[in-house]
């Protein structure tokens, strides 16, 4: 079964979200408390604002009525209009909104004018005769009081039951005196209280606002009439309202804060008096409702917040899981590689860019490692092969210091220093018979095992020379023809061989493209052996070689070498060269041995290279001829 593991990324993510949720919760709570305060302050302002609107409407109504009365009074004074003119005038004036209707009523008598106009909902005017409705109107306070006091009168709202709702109508009456200051009648206006407040909710966009009006109904023993219901029962309580009215009177026209007068403090709002204490208005908010609303808002925010967090978390979880999946696949494949399966295909087709890049990087590393392992394997193999080849070679090349049988006192020395284990350079020497010494040196081009195998091949062939009593040139011709057919690897050999009669000093030699040897004469002069015809062994069959001769004189030292000497290099990429070689040979002196000559040259090479690694095999052979 697959173990469900949470990676470090998921753990971190979970932790981050828990912390985020806690911080979010704390923050929301803090916000809520702050918001609540601001919210309540806002509601307080809204209530006050609503009240201000009502007050403004009341003022506007009063102003309108005053203006109408003043205007009509002037017109009446000037024109003394007929009854029909009065009707036209009143039609024109009684337009202001909020005033439901109005009229002019004269004292009862013949030909008296008592018309009342009121506005229908459709905007048209209806004209009624007061006398028809109230025959004894002159006894009503709205007529009687202005008449006797000469001052405008406001009547406490009358409660009329119109169809199925109550209508609260305030009546305003203004006395009219003619230009002789005789009382003639009253101007009356009716204001339906509900028009003062009906649209306030819409105006301040809050249906939680309660707008109520109330007044003591004198026709009902002073019982407080409450207009419009409110959510809060205690507000419509008669006792509370009676106290409130007293408080309003004390405030002398200023709105009073209801929270101050409520003992349990569940209401925000304001109250004030209108139309000379004939009716009162209050605008209130129920604190409980506001609280509930705020809480709902809080819960909604919390739920939305938590929901968003969860969705966000799930998304991130999914995203991480999605991006980690290819990593897990890679991890599995890398384990396979670790087990040694280097052919595992690590590449990933799809996935996040970084992961694809990771896979690509691992794939490159895999190729590299595979390549390196292959290299190491090859090198190890090669090194082992090289060692074996070197061992074989060492067993075939004559070891330094071996005495030549019958000439134990011969001054002869040889030196071979391969650049690596196995050498491409070789030398050989042995006595052909009692008097003739065979000497050879060669350089197989190419390196490593194949080259060293060729040196062994050459050394083996040389051993057959005593059986073939032919010239040097023929010997090389034959050797070359033997090598060419087996030379698929294009290995070529520069080769020099010489036979010296140790008694007479007569020498014959041949060269296959090898550097001609130097002879150091007793007097210190250096001569180079005459160049013979012939090029590398192993190129073409039937190549021509020439045999050359040299007569050794007493004290002649022959110095044979491979290009490892002349091409020894220093760190400046300079070559040791022939000139340096020649000068070493010149300077060694006449009394030195063959060994000293070779040592001097090698010492000089080392001093020249100055630690720069040897890149080519170095081989030197030296024979000092004594008569």
């Amino acid at each position, binding site marked *: 079964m697959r173990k469900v593991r949470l990676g470090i990324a998921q753990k971190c993510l979970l932790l981050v979200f828990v912390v985020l949720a806690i911080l979010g919760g704390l923050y929301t709570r803090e916000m809520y408390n702050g918001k609540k305060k601001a919210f309540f302050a806002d509601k307080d302002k809204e209530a006050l604002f609503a009240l201000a609107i009502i007050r403004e409407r009341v003022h506007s109504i009063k102003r309108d009525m005053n203006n109408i009365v003043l205007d009509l009074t002037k017109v009446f004074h000037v024109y003394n209009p007929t009854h029909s003119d009065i009707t036209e005038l009143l039609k024109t004036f009684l337009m202001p909104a909020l005033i439901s209707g109005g009229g002019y009523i004269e004292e009862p008598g013949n030909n008296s004018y008592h018309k009342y106009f009121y506005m229908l909902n459709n905007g048209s005017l209806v004209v009624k005769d007061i006398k028809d409705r109230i025959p004894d109107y002159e006894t009503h306070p709205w007529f009687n009081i202005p008449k006797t006091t000469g001052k405008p009168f406001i009547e406490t709202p009358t409660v009329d039951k119109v169809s199925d709702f109550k209508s609260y109508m305030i009546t305003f009456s203004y006395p009219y005196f003619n230009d002789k200051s005789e009382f003639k009648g009253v101007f009356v206006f009716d204001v339906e209280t509900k028009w003062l407040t009906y649209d306030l909710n819409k105006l301040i966009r809050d249906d939680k606002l309660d707008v109520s009006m109330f007044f003591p109904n004198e026709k009902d023993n002073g019982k407080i009439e409450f207009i419009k219901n409110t959510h809060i029962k205690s507000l419509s309580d008669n006792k509370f309202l009676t106290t409130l009215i007293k408080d309003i009177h004390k405030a002398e026209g200023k709105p009073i804060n209801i929270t101050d007068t409520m003992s349990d403090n569940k209401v925000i709002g304001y109250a004030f008096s209108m139309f000379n204490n004939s009716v009162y208005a209050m605008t209130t908010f129920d604190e409980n409702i506001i609280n509930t609303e705020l809480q709902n808002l809080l819960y909604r925010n919390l739920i939305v917040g938590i929901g968003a967090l969860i969705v966000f978390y799930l998304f991130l979880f999914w995203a991480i899981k999605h991006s980690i999946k290819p990593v897990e696949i890679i991890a599995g494949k890398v384990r396979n590689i670790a087990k040694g399966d280097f052919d595992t295909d690590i590449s990933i087709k799809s996935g996040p860019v970084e992961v694809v890049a990771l896979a690509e990087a691992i794939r490159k590393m895999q190729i590299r490692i595979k390549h390196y392992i292959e290299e190491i394997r090859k090198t190890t193999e090669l090194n082992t092969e090289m060692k074996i080849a070197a061992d074989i070679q060492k067993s075939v090349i004559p070891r330094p210091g071996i005495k030549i049988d019958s000439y134990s006192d011969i001054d002869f020395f040889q030196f071979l220093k391969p650049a690596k284990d196995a050498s491409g350079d070789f030398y050989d020497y042995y006595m052909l018979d009692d008097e003739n010494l065979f000497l050879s040196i060669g350089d197989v*081009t*190419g390196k490593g095992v194949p080259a060293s195998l060729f040196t062994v091949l050459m050394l083996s062939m040389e051993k057959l020379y005593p059986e073939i009593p032919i010239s040097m040139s023929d010997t090389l011709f034959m050797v070359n023809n033997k090598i060419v057919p087996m030379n698929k690897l294009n290995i*070529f050999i520069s080769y020099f061989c010489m036979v010296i009669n140790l008694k007479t000093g007569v020498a014959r030699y041949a060269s296959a*493209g090898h550097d001609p040897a130097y002879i150091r004469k007793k007097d210190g002069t250096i001569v180079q052996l005459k*160049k013979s015809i012939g*090029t*590398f062994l192993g*190129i*073409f069959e039937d190549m021509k070689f020439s045999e050359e001769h040299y007569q050794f004189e007493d004290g002649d030292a022959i110095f044979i070498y491979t*290009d490892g000497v002349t091409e020894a290099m220093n760190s400046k990429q300079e070559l040791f060269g022939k000139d340096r070689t020649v000068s070493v040979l010149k300077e060694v002196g006449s009394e030195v041995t063959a060994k000293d000559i070779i040592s001097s040259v090698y010492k000089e090479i080392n001093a020249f290279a100055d630690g720069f690694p040897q890149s080519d095999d170095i081989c030197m052979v030296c024979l000092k001829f004594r008569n």
Partner: protein
Amino acid sequence: MLDIVLEDKNGVKLVSLVGELNVKTSSDFEKHFDELDGSKIILNADKLDYISSAGLRSLVILIKKLYISKGEAVMCSLSGVVKEVIEVSGFENLFKIFDNLEDAEKYFAQ
């Protein structure tokens, strides 16, 4: 370093070797061998400063290839160490060597 400049001159491939033909650069030289196979070739050594035994081996490989494909290479403008090495190696037995490019061109023009 070795720069190899190849030019085609009237059906003769002129190969100018600039720098050193040694164990490091001989493989660069050998890369051109397939292209040179079967052709008449002038190896211009005018600006060749040095040739090592690995370089000589490359030359021999080229000569062997041309021998089979009936092409021919000549060398010209040898000097200094290069001249010495080529002479010592007995390469005059393998291909013709001219003192200058004109002589080499003349040889192929015949």
